């Protein structure tokens, strides 16, 4: 029984490197997604009709097709248009563009959730349009959408597993290789499962800490990680 784990312990370096790569891709793609999402949310509320239509088309096209297909189109499809990307860049771009569409909807909902009276009061006070957006709408919207953004970050982390399809050696890709080498299916994938679980819980914990710091009053989110085993006693019975 134990020799299997000893065998896999020899691959621990690979697992750690893969986890680091996964985290890197997640954060880079998330940065792109935030930027795209914000721009698209702004464009979908713009005065120019063409911008609104473009934003709508982008959001609908991305949200209604599978991520895997989008990754394939960026990695295998773009070279025939003359753009050749390596797996890392293609993966980051594909995931960033994908999550950007989801975040655009989130931001749009957040901006709409700000009461109209706030805008009217701000314009009566003589603020310009850009000032109203930056200083009145954005802070309130950010607070409203923060949990949804964190949710998308976690989804993005899980989505990076699909990059193994374009041979990026992140957690799933590494697991597939190790699995093919050792044929220890259960053990390999159990370790991978645990690695993803740790990563996603660490990310959501960090996001919760950040949310409690940057917002005033502090934004308290559900603590997923800590309640996993321990504090379930009373809450579940009611």
């Amino acid at each position, binding site marked *: 029984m134990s020799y299997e784990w000893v065998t896999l312990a020899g691959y621990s370096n690979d697992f750690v490197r893969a986890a680091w790569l996964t985290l890197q891709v997640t954060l880079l793609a998330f940065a792109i997604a935030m930027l795209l999402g914000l721009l698209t949310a702004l464009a979908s509320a713009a005065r120019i009709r063409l911008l609104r239509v473009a934003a709508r088309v982008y959001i609908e096209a991305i949200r*209604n097709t*599978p991520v895997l297909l989008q990754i394939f189109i960026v990695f295998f499809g*773009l070279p025939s248009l003359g753009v050749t990307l390596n797996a890392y860049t293609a993966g980051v771009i594909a995931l960033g563009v994908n999550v950007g569409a989801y975040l655009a909807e989130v931001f749009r909902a957040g901006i709409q959730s700000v009461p109209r009276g706030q805008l009217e009061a701000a314009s009566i006070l003589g603020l310009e349009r850009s000032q109203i957006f930056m200083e009145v709408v954005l802070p309130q919207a950010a607070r409203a959408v923060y949990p949804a953004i964190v949710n998308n970050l976690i989804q993005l982390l*899980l*989505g*990076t597993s*699909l990059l193994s399809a374009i041979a990026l050696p992140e957690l799933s890709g590494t697991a597939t290789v190790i699995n093919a080498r050792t044929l220890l299916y259960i053990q390999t994938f159990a370790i991978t*499962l645990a690695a993803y679980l740790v990563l996603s819980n660490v990310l959501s914990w960090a996001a919760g800490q950040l949310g409690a710091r940057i917002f005033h009053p502090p934004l308290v989110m559900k603590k997923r990680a800590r309640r996993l*085993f321990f504090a379930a006693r009373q809450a*579940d019975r009611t």
Partner: protein
Amino acid sequence: MSSDLLLTSLSILLQGLLMTLLLSAASIVGGTLIGLLAAVLRSFGPWGTPRIARLYTELFRGTPVLITLMLIYFGVSYFGYAIDVFAAGALGLSIYQGAYIAEVFRSGIEAVPKGQWEVSQILGLSKTQTFFSVALPQTGKIVMPPLIGQYLSLIKDTSIVSMIGMSELMHGGQAIVDRVGKPVTGSESRSKSMDWSPCCISSCAFRYRSGCATMIEEGACCHDQRHYVEADHQSCRRQQVVRRHAGSEEHRPRR
């Protein structure tokens, strides 16, 4: 983009589309059942089951579907059984999406007002009866929109099953690309548009369905009122059942 290529690849794409639809249907049924079971266990389950249900949802919401699929597909053979790739895909997707659907159902169950439970208890319904006849119908209406969103993401997740070797729509498109060697101008784009169409169709169908639900919700038909215990519509089955139970309670001989 010759019509020749379209004709030769159409059968593969159609076969893939059929597999995608079958797999989606199987996983939607399986995922909903698993999700409902997990949600009920988490809310009302005896002994340690709430904790197990919670562990299940946390585990599968925190890990990618690809790993779940591989774990099932390869893991089953580790224990010496062979599993069909369709079965592995349907099982994996059901278990994975079941975790999300469980959360949807749980929020729906918790959203049913506590008064409904109390009234049912006063009317003499048992807990099981209350759940199935009073709480569940109301839950269904509350969870319909997020549930549809979850189903749509499930349909898109079926493309991932191609990575453990099932030839669904995406895999069909990939096979044609491998043969023709023109990913964008060739069939990938067509596969994309076709993959989009089931999503659109189901989205429209689901929108239509939920549109009906909201119409009913606005009180167009009395039949729907059976969800609520308080209304006194003679023609509603729910009320009759409630009355019958209330009556049986009264007729019980006193000690």
